[in-house]
């Protein structure tokens, strides 16, 4: 696997995003809304609030912040393959000496880096704001170490999940809009998972946070492998499935020796 090729793909993708107002707008608006809402919520909580009230409010904020890495990447990831095919740029890329895994890793990294950077930036802003201006009782809950750890660990892992699902759909979808809609829908189950953590139905202790993060990492790796296998050059170029040469040879060998399988002859 060539790092240089992966970096080339990342650089090209990022350049394209930056010049696409639709992508910039989508990546900017959602996090901006998700930044304003927690800020308003946090600064409304009075000093006299009870523990459960504060936990519920902070849970909502935490959920919103975990939605960002789930919701932002699918737009980019779902476009990554089918979008290139639609604009006619995929075939020249596939004639270059780049492996499917390199191409997909580059595209995933290009979606991953801005999504995670945006989420961390928003989280940093929220933490700074809480530190500077929120009530003491809010500070205590927000700066609870397992909560912080969960937020930091799950942000990239959730983004990766969302990206691989998006790219996987993109390799098989017939149209960009269909791919983006399907990718958004496919990311929804993750919201259930994040809700469980945010509202502390799964108590985010350090071992649980690390355990869940490892499980998510394993799932992300499995998804990468699956998506790489789904990437079929022939199908992407012609719309037909790849001719399985080995299967064909195997079949031919058996046709030449029909007696072995009890066939006629």
């Amino acid at each position, binding site marked *: 696997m060539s790092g240089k090729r992966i970096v*080339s*793909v990342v650089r090209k993708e990022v350049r394209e995003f930056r010049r696409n107002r639709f992508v910039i707008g989508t990546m900017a608006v959602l996090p901006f809304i998700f930044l304003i809402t927690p800020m308003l919520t946090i600064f409304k909580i009075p000093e006299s609030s009870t523990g459960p009230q504060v936990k519920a409010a902070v849970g909502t904020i935490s959920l919103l912040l975990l939605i960002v890495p789930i919701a932002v990447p699918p737009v980019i990831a779902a476009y990554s393959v089918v979008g290139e095919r639609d604009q006619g740029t995929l075939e*020249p*890329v*596939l004639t270059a000496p780049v492996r499917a895994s390199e191409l997909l890793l580059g595209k995933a990294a290009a979606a991953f880096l801005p999504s995670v950077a945006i989420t961390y930036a928003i989280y940093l802003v929220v933490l700074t704001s809480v530190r500077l201006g929120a009530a003491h009782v809010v500070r205590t809950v927000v700066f609870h170490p397992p909560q912080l750890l969960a937020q930091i660990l799950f942000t990239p892992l959730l983004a990766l999940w969302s990206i691989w699902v998006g790219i996987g759909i993109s390799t098989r979808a017939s149209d960009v809009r269909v791919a983006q809609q399907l990718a958004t829908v496919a990311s929804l189950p993750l919201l259930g998972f994040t809700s469980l953590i945010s509202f502390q139905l799964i108590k985010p202790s350090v071992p649980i946070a690390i355990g869940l993060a490892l499980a998510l990492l394993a799932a992300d790796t499995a998804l990468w492998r699956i998506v790489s296998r789904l990437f079929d050059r022939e199908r992407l*170029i012609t719309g037909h499935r*790849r001719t399985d040469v080995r299967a064909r040879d195997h079949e031919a060998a058996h046709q030449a020796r029909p007696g072995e399988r009890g066939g006629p002859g």
Partner: protein
Amino acid sequence: MNRPSTCRCSPTEGTIVRLEVVAELGCPNEIVRLMDRPWFRRRRVGLGWRPIGWQGWLVTGVAVALAAGALTLLHASSARVPIVILVVAVYAAVALATGGARSADPAAPEDQPNGGEAEIGVGGVEQRLALRALTSGRVSTSSPDEPALVVEHLTKRFGERLAVDDVSFSVAAGEVFGFLGPNGAGKTTTVRMLATLIAPTSGTARVAGLLLDPANGVDIRQRIAVMTENPGLYLRLTVAENLEFFAGLYELAQPKARIGQALAAVNLGGRANDPCGSLSKGLRQRVALARALLSDPAVVFLDEPTSGLDPVASREVQELIDGLRERGVTVFLTTHRLEEAERLCDRVAILNTSMLTVGRPDELRDRLFTKSLVVRTVAPLASPERVFTVAGVDGWRADDTTRYVLTVSDARIAAPAVTRALVAAGADLLSLAEEQHSLEDVYLELVDDDVEAAT
């Protein structure tokens, strides 16, 4: 959209976007002048922008003053943090909207003396020198005697449809090989199989010395280049950025130099920083050609390289193909322009799902058409059967009362004999010429016969 005629802008996408916005707003000249140059330039490394020009510094100063004011004056208020965030967001939006090229971009348009204007139609010596530089470092990957392409019984089936049927041919190293056929004949499918994009249903091939096999996919693609019929450029990226991406995929050493050489070879040296979306179809085609030359491939597959080009640009591309031949590059040329194939190709293959014929254009003519002489006289001959009974003439027919077509075995023997016979018979000879058949005649003869046979 009415663009202000007074604007002379650097051709970066940022400028174009700004001009579009200004034009939509009615475009007062002051605003155009104000926004004529970028206010910010993207940093070489990392995020952010560097202010350039007084506009950029003014916006930065205002943003810093507002943020500092909010933090100081609203010290006791919880609103100070959202206000600072808002200021930063607005500042970033302004920088994004008015930002120019990255600092490290080679020869950013605003740094160029001609502002990135095109140098179309210069051509000639510079092009050839650039091509020479581009192909000077190629290390042969196979023996010079070994054919660049060997295709044996290649077949491709898509479900029930047979796209390519049992095709065999070989292409020598350094040869320009024309691949002709009607639409849907399987030309592009054959190219895609040889470029490892799709797998053959059966048959084998060797491409640039390597067996056509999924395991060799990356190595084969490293040695070849394909210029697809659709240029397939990233329209939001500049010409140089498009090539830079592919230089990275080919892991080229000194990519910037090679990009410069490739662009010079297709005569686009002055358009490196133009967004591809702003180029005409013909120029995009030339960028795609530059991309195909970038990696100095042993075999170049060109699918309709002159499609959509004007005659001058077509001629430049043809000269480029000639140049590639001189430099020992094997060219596999798919084209509908038969006169182009005849002029450029050492050999041609005519395909219509199955291979109809392969050979040199003159060979094909000889193979398909009998040699003939066309005799035209001022008045009808009294007894042509007597006149044309001479050495070398195998038969004759009258196309018209004064036009006779003679079938000959060797024109060099028959023509003088026929001339003497005509003079002896007292005929007034208007012309005597060998009948010429073009590659188009060969093509039509073969393809029409094939269509008739199929129906």
